[in-house]
């Protein structure tokens, strides 16, 4: 026996279809809930303007709540609002008169009459709270709210309309009979922490759909709502664990390539950890410039306090020439998923093969406070998602020099990268020197040497291994006794 086919409507809201598990089931009965100002009416309008066509017309019932003229005044500011659809594919109908009677039967009868008259494929009731309050206020409701919702659900399903009840106040902790009737429950909210406000959406229920659980951040801009779905973690296409090792990318520093065992395996993620001023950004710049020299496109997401800080002439020229794309990271309420989506979109658009995140420390500072608790998990997701696109990733991480322990990242994220380069300051002969080492290159041989380096106008110049010093990781190395002896017995005596 063949099963009923559930068509999934593509909502046109970026990211929402992914979160919904592939789109919105046609003929479903949905609730859009959340506090005032959380974006419910905007989401409803965006869905409606995307989905409504002359063949699948929409009815938008406005109840008491927001005056329709006000709603139209503000909603038309969005790009999706198309006046030409109004009174054609989209019809607004005000139910204030019926609602004011407090008789839900009358409200239902009017909805039924309009549905019969216009045979809509989409029905919106905004806001549903007004219906409830009006019914409670008057005390003479002839049918109960639950009956109302059940009858409305039945009516809409038989009339083959995908329906949305836009509701204001439902408490998520108190399961309401309305939620039982609904096929879909979409919750929208705002999280406020300090001066930062982050909008979040949660699909609490969507019958028959593999939804993406949990809270997803979204933004409301001129184009409407944009949901930031967590990046998909698909396996990297075709490249087995052995394959990347043959194909290596040059870092723009031959000595470092040598230390890495012949360059960084393509598709790997590399973490460069070091204290401030150790030249992490210089290495990152060299990595992108080397890519550009080989005809590769790069992307940089620079999380700096000062966006206009000079990135050096070479990098600036490459950005100008379109060889390196820049991700705007200046939004005040950034989430990791949002940056992931921006990066992946840009990678796909420009066919980029090299990505730089400089630095994770700056990223954490720019992040909206509400996301900081989950930074590590989200970062791990992002690295996996970037890896899945096949790009080679270089991340930098600010690391305070601690000479009593060997750490590579304050986030404990060293485990998630394929390769690690650590930089440190050391004192030799009363001078501050810099030293670098390759700590890890997954599944590959690499140098274990601690190499001294300095920075000049041409970038990072890596020198030799400090064979005659020991205790380098402690920050204050000493001459090895045999070396001291060779130096003329300075320590003897």
């Amino acid at each position, binding site marked *: 026996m063949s099963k009923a086919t559930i068509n999934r409507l593509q909502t046109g809201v970026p990211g929402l279809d992914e979160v919904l598990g592939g789109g919105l089931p046609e003929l479903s009965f949905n609730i859009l809930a959340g506090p005032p100002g959380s974006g419910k009416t905007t989401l409803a309008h965006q869905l409606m303007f995307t989905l409504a066509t002359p063949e699948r017309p929409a009815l938008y019932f406005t109840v008491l709540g927001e005056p*329709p003229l006000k709603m139209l*005044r503000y909603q038309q500011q969005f790009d999706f609002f198309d*006046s*030409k659809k*109004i009174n054609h594919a989209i019809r607004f109908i005000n139910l204030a008169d019926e609602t004011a009677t407090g008789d839900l039967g009358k409200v239902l009868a009017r909805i039924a009459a309009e549905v019969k008259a216009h045979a809509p494929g989409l029905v919106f009731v905004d806001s549903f709270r007004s219906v409830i309050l009006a019914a409670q206020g008057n005390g003479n409701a002839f049918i109960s709210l639950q009956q109302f919702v059940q009858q409305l659900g039945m009516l809409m399903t038989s009339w083959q309309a995908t329906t949305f009840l836009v509701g204001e106040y439902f408490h998520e902790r108190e399961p309401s009979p309305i939620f039982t009737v609904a096929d879909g429950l979409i919750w929208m909210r705002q999280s406020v922490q300090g001066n930062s406000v982050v909008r979040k959406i949660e699909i609490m229920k969507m019958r028959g759909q593999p939804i993406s659980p949990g809270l997803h951040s979204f933004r409301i801009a001129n184009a409407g709502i944009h949901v930031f779905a967590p990046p998909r973690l698909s396996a990297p296409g075709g490249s087995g664990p052995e394959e990347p090792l043959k194909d290596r990318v040059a870092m723009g520093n031959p000595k470092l390539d040598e230390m890495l065992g012949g360059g960084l395996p393509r598709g790997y993620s590399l973490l460069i950890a070091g204290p401030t001023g150790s030249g992490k950004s210089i290495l990152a710049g060299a990595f992108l410039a080397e890519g550009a020299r080989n005809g590769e496109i790069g992307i940089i997401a620079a999380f700096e306090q000062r966006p206009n800080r000079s990135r050096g002439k070479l990098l600036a020229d490459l950005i100008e020439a379109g060889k390196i794309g820049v991700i705007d990271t200046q939004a005040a309420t950034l989430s990791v998923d949002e940056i992931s989506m921006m990066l992946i979109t840009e990678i796909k658009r420009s066919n980029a093969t090299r990505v730089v995140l400089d630095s994770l420390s700056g990223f954490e500072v720019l992040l909206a406070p509400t996301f900081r608790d989950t930074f590590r998990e989200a970062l791990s997701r992002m690295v996996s998602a970037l890896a899945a696109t096949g790009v080679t990733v270089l991340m930098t991480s600010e690391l305070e020099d601690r000479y009593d322990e060997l750490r590579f990242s304050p986030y404990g994220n060293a485990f998630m990268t394929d390769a690690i380069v650590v930089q440190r300051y050391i004192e030799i002969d009363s001078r501050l020197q810099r030293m670098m080492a390759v700590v890890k290159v997954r599944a590959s041989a690499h140098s274990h040497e601690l190499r001294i380096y300095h920075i000049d106008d041409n970038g990072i110049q890596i020198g030799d291994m400090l064979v005659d010093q020991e205790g380098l990781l402690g920050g204050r190395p000493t001459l090895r006794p045999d070396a001291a002896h060779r130096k003329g017995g300075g320590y003897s005596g």
Partner: protein
Amino acid sequence: MEAKDAAQAVDRAVAAWRRIDDALWPIVGHAGMAALFKRSLYLARVDHPALTPMVDAEIAPGDFALLREILAQQPGAAAAAAIQAGLLKTFLGLLTDLIGPALTERLLRSARAPPSGGEAVQDILL
């Protein structure tokens, strides 16, 4: 002849308001439409004092009897048409301020006097 013209002008004016009401109340509600109309009367009365009695009058939604009465009292078709034009212009201006010209035109498309041509809403309604 003069009286007949005047009567026709009044009929046209009231018919235009009925069409506007029919086009708008389903969308903004009877109360919403009544509020817009009242505000228009209040603003238009400055140039057309004949409308003053309507400003404070209790008018049921969709009831244009008092407007008909006031227009009919005017000395001739031209005077009635001038008041109607002033009131309509105020009303359309108010709606346009609120929801913009494109949407105003869209919502009032069905309020055009038959036969409708390619003219602007305001010309047709007059």
